[in-house]
């Protein structure tokens, strides 16, 4: 059963990383404009810039 001693902390640590990245994304305003984010990915303005 010693395997639990590192498997359980590992599972918790991975979950904790997920939680922290969610809190970070919330704080950096990534949930402020959900519709905009969905549409921006379709715009090709970066390609146009390369052409110039």
């Amino acid at each position: 059963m010693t395997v639990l001693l590192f498997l359980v902390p590992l599972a918790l640590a991975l979950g904790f990383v997920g939680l922290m990245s969610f809190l970070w994304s919330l704080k950096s305003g990534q949930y402020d404009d959900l519709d905009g984010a969905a549409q921006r990915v379709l715009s090709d303005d970066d390609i146009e810039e390369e052409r110039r």
Partner: protein
Amino acid sequence: MSAPALDFEALVTRGEDGSFRLEAAIEGMTCAACIGDIESALRNLPGLIVARVNYTNRRLSLEWRESAFELAGVFERLRRMGYRLRPFELASGERAEQETSKGLLRCLAIAAFAAMNIMLLSAAVWIGEDTDIDPATRDMFHGLSALIALPAAAFAGQPFFESAFNALRARRLNMDVPISLGVVLALAMSVYETLTHAQRAYFDSAIMLLAFLLLGRYLDAAMRRKTRGVAANLAALRAPLACRLGADGRETMIAATGLRRGDRVLARPGEVLPADGVVIAGASTLDESIVTGETARRPVSRGERVYAGSLNHDGALTLEVEAAGAGTLLGEIERLLEKATSARSRYVRLADRVSRFYAPVVHLAALATALFWLWRGASIHDALVTAISVLIVTCPCALALAVPAVQVVASGALFRGGVLLNAADALERFAQIDTVVFDKTGTLTSPHPSVVNARDFDSELVELAAGLARASSHPLAQAVARARPDAPLLADATEERGQGVRALVDGAEARLGSPSFCKLEAEADALGALAPDVSLVAFRHGARHALFQLRQTLRGDAAVVIAALARRGLAIEILSGDRAEAVRSIAEALGVAEWRGALKPAEKVARIEALRAAGRKVLMVGDGLNDAPALASAHASMSPIDATQVTQAAADAVFLGERLAPVLTTVETSVQAQWVMRQNLALSVIYNLFATPLAMLGLLTPLIAAAAMSGSSLLVTLNALRTGGRARGLGEGAP
């Protein structure tokens, strides 16, 4: 004429690093491609640091440094591309709403994370009960659960603990008191059980309870924030810009909210007065229907008091801005509002009424359980454990979700139907009404005038006039344009402010504007004495000419909606500030028997109070400044989006569009929502009837507690979703 300078000093916020920020609502943004258009157009402006479009709420936020940046440049560039910017101050209420909703999401994330991980450990313990788990391993799992649960509950439980504490301090009980008590006791008991190497711990139930409740609260807050954002945008787009006159006569365009007492403001014909004040120069006639409900225009001249929201018809006016003082119409309305609003706050929400009854019952049941087991000779420890498990299982998870879940779904359905709810408990009050009182002007009638004699003229002539009218921003011209919405726009039209528009069509000059602008004074005089609420717009093209008569007409679906409301068994009444004869004709057209005209604001309130005293629950629908006190004193209230800001603030809900149907949709959806809320409450009571006896007998295992709790929460939430389904059908099917 050069464009007047822009001044939004009052709305600009200063950052700590010396940068400036401005938020503006964008009008004319129709598709996602606009994001790129706007942002790339502003990319290379000197001094601008960030220009970012928020597509969800149709706003642009600008950040710049003082040097070399011209705000007017941004407005000009976007105007040429066809977008209109309206800067606004983020209302403190909206900012608070955003913070609350973000805070709840943070709490929800933490509670959900904790619940999932504790469940992982708990599942192992539950399975271990059958497969002889090693007691040391079980203790370790319980200990780990405690390590996760305690900090998570301390953080994620804050919204409940705070609310419960506030309620207790005010010597009241609300739903959060039993929730907080249940969570704290469950955690405390679980810690004790862990330390004494017991078999059972309830960390999972406590944290899952928090996660479920936070989900409900977050959805509720998010819906409210969305509604409020849309309302703020609409308000910003409608809020008039004021043309302020400097001491040297220079004109500056500023947001009306930035006006101060003593400022001098110029109002041109066709503009809406931006503030209350006294006329110091000029003479004109004003359409004050949004203020008083009176549709006949009032001539004003030097020295007379005028009100924000009035439409300036004929001549330019210079005003001196003044705040509302005692004895003025606004002063009286504020006083009435204060009185009426305090009357409204007596209403107790359904959820609070239930919890007022429920919380004592739960606590008594727990106490009775403990006493019973002591009497039966159980140890103090066993008696306490059983009592606490009663508290946990009766902790009103489903009960607390029952009402908010329905509220979220129903207000979402209303939102799609063009109704924005202001108050969280409005749905319950809408469901109880038995009488609907309408204001006439701007509510039953369309807020904009429309052409009533278009059929008298050649169709091609009307189309030409409408095309020319589209080039003008004057409200009357826009009404002519609406007579033929698909008429092609005449591109090279020039507008002469306060006079009209003209353009060359087929080699002859076409003019649209005042009768004198089109040389039709004789014809206008020949029409003789028209009703006082009719306005004239003249049109001339070569030798052909037309005089359009405009007046406010009934909203297209008013008769159908009134009939449908009456069919639901609601009493209908009209209370108007307009002349009695004008009200009579409308009332007869709609088949409404109960109507009163020429009412002052206080008389409207008196009538509402009289209805209330007779035991009626009144829904008031009105738009004018004079309706605001009546809206606040009615049991529930709605106003159209064209209403004055004071009025909208007093209303429980605001509806969009040219139709009256949202009133019917609101009533129908609310009645249905109320029904589903009752079902949900019944469901959670049934759940308690099954679970509580188990807990009282000491048969409750953590597994049963967790399953019952999530099962009942899911059931309640799924039931709530039915509201949206049927309400959407109503919204589309409504006349």
